[in-house]
């Protein structure tokens, strides 16, 4: 049998036609324009910016090198306390303003020359956990977390989708958000899922009751949908995170690329 261990074989593997065309997988750092170094993740521990779509327990991805412009959301140290605020500037006067609808009259005095204020970083996006497990993963993230790993973009069953419309606003999923989806998970009741219905993809909350499946929107004016057999309903995946882009430049970037096409 020794004759058969020589390296020549019957049929060599086909050169894969895709090999030459392989593109690197989606990379959040590339989307945000972050260099390999010099960015950090920050866990939001308040509702101070909830009107801007940043909820308690979200992870903020921020750039320490970007120069903060007016209307940017920034991480600032004010009198030795780290806070997330919107920077508003007019002439030589600057304000650092919270956006919490529960406290509409929070202090809005201008920054004075004697104030000890340090702007640490400009917030580029916030990551919102859509399931209990992903919220836990966010709150336990290591200080120098790799954003792509945190979102699971290296996993074979994880895909990204783009949200159009605000039907899931109540769940923290806004128009223009990127939703990270795990296709391998089976949905549990109340999970936010991506499903195909009538040949279209939707993001909705998955509810089972009395032997039927309902798709619920998290928007007061959108009624629930009862799933019937002729809709061709199929679960596409379970939503893990939504990425809310805060910086106008990055949002524009997405749009510009789309117009250019290939």
């Amino acid at each position, binding site marked *: *049998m020794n*004759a*058969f*261990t020589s390296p*020549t*074989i*019957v*049929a060599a*593997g*086909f050169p*894969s*036609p*895709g*090999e*030459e*065309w*392989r*593109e*690197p*997988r*989606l990379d959040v750092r*590339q*989307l945000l*324009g972050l260099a390999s170094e010099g960015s950090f993740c920050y866990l939001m521990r308040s509702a101070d910016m909830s009107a801007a779509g940043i909820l308690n327990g979200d992870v903020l991805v921020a750039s320490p090198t970007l120069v903060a412009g007016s209307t940017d959301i920034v991480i600032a140290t004010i009198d030795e306390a780290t806070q997330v605020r919107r920077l508003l500037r007019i002439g030589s006067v600057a304000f650092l303003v919270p956006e919490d609808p529960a406290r509409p009259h929070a202090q809005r005095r201008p920054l004075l020359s004697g104030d000890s204020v340090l702007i640490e970083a400009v917030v580029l996006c916030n990551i919102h956990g859509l399931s209990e497990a992903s919220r836990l993963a966010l709150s336990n993230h290591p200080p120098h977390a790799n954003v792509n790993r945190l979102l699971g973009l290296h996993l*074979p*069953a994880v*895909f*990204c*989708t*783009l*949200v*159009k*419309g605000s*039907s899931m606003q109540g769940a923290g999923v806004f128009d223009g958000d*990127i*939703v990270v989806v795990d*296709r*391998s998970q089976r949905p549990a009741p109340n999970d936010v899922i*991506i499903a*195909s*219905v009538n*040949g*279209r*993809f*939707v*993001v909705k909350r998955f509810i089972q009751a009395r032997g039927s499946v309902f798709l619920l929107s998290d928007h007061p004016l959108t009624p629930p949908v009862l799933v019937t057999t002729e809709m*061709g309903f*199929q679960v*596409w995946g379970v939503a893990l995170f939504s990425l809310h882009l805060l910086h106008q430049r990055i949002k524009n*970037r*997405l749009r*510009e*690329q*789309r117009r*250019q096409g*290939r």
Partner: protein
Amino acid sequence: MRRSVIALVDCSNFYVSVERIFHAALQKRPVVVLSNNDGNLVAVSAEAKALGLKRGMAYHRCRSIIKQHRVAVFSSNYALYQDLSDRVMQILADFALLRDGLRQQEIYSIDECFLDLSHIPSEQLLDYGRQMQEAVLHATGIPVHVGIAPTKILAKIATEVAKREPSHADVVNLVDLPEQELDAILETMAVGEIWGIGKRRAQILQAQEIFTAEILKYTPPGRTRHLLGVVGERITYELRGLACIPLEVTNKPKQGIMASRSFGRPVESQQELAEAIAHYTARAAEKLRRQQSVAASISIFVSTNRFDPETPPYATGASGRLLCATDFTPDLIAVAQGLLQQIYRPGIRYHRAGVYLSEIGPCHVIQPDLFGGYDFEQEEKKARLMATLDVITNFCGRDAIFFGAQGLERSWQAKSRWLSAHYTTRWSDLLQVT
């Protein structure tokens, strides 16, 4: 002797299955995928097959059927297919035997791989096969066929059986199958269907009245060796359940970087050919920089269409070395175009061109050429220019900035009129949900 168990996992109608992941309305509709340049059908869904469409048919010949039955048509989107292939292979690797820190998986093509399952007890194999099938289907939405057998050739036959007979629910295990039952399967398999036996070899066997896999199995190995050489002898042993074609597990390190395409139409002028060569060089150099390497050698090749009966076949190429390994696109383009000047012949209808970068090394090792001609400041400038170019390309797309040598019109580029989005590799192409 070590027990051998090999599984072959084969994605069903891979390109069609991938398009269906991202097009919810196409689950039951007929779908076809066209080859490069939208020429022929390369993938045909079961529904489209039922309409009489077949792989290899020219698109323009079946346009009326496609229109009449509202068949969904796609240009081949290899970047997307390759990404899904990588995902499928990543999932399947975890099922393979782990030896010397390496998963015993051979990625055989974009939609097939062999796995060593010798660590799984025989009675569990069928279940294990189903688990693999479920895992891939769940994580990606791609259905697969699984064939399990003691040898590669038999595993390939097992997947054929799985495809042919729906009663097996896509998983077939031939390990420990009684000899008569196996022979009954082999009897239904023509020699031409056996993996590794092409048309020519099949003809040689048929001339000797060896028509089925079963007859081949019981032909003395010495005789098949006489007929087909060592290849035939190995196939005979493999049909008998003796593994003699090993898995090719080791991932060959990427030795060279290739960028090649066929044209959308025949190209004759040197001007256009030079544009194409420059364009592919720029692509290859971009890949080179992405893996932080430099290349010291560049080859180009051009060829006619060997399927075009009106063009005499012609192919040629040339290689050149750089004084100093580089990733600087203009330097590489200059060498590539110099090579083209040497090999260009007028009056030939060129169909394809390509560029191959080799002698690749890491970019942080500086190798000044023999005559000491290394200007640090100059190199620093070049590196900065390329880094800027890559950043702009990254954010604004490939067409935002490019070298004049790549041409403005590029009317020679292949057509892909029905290309779907690059859902998994470009932020601008994400699947939209409402």
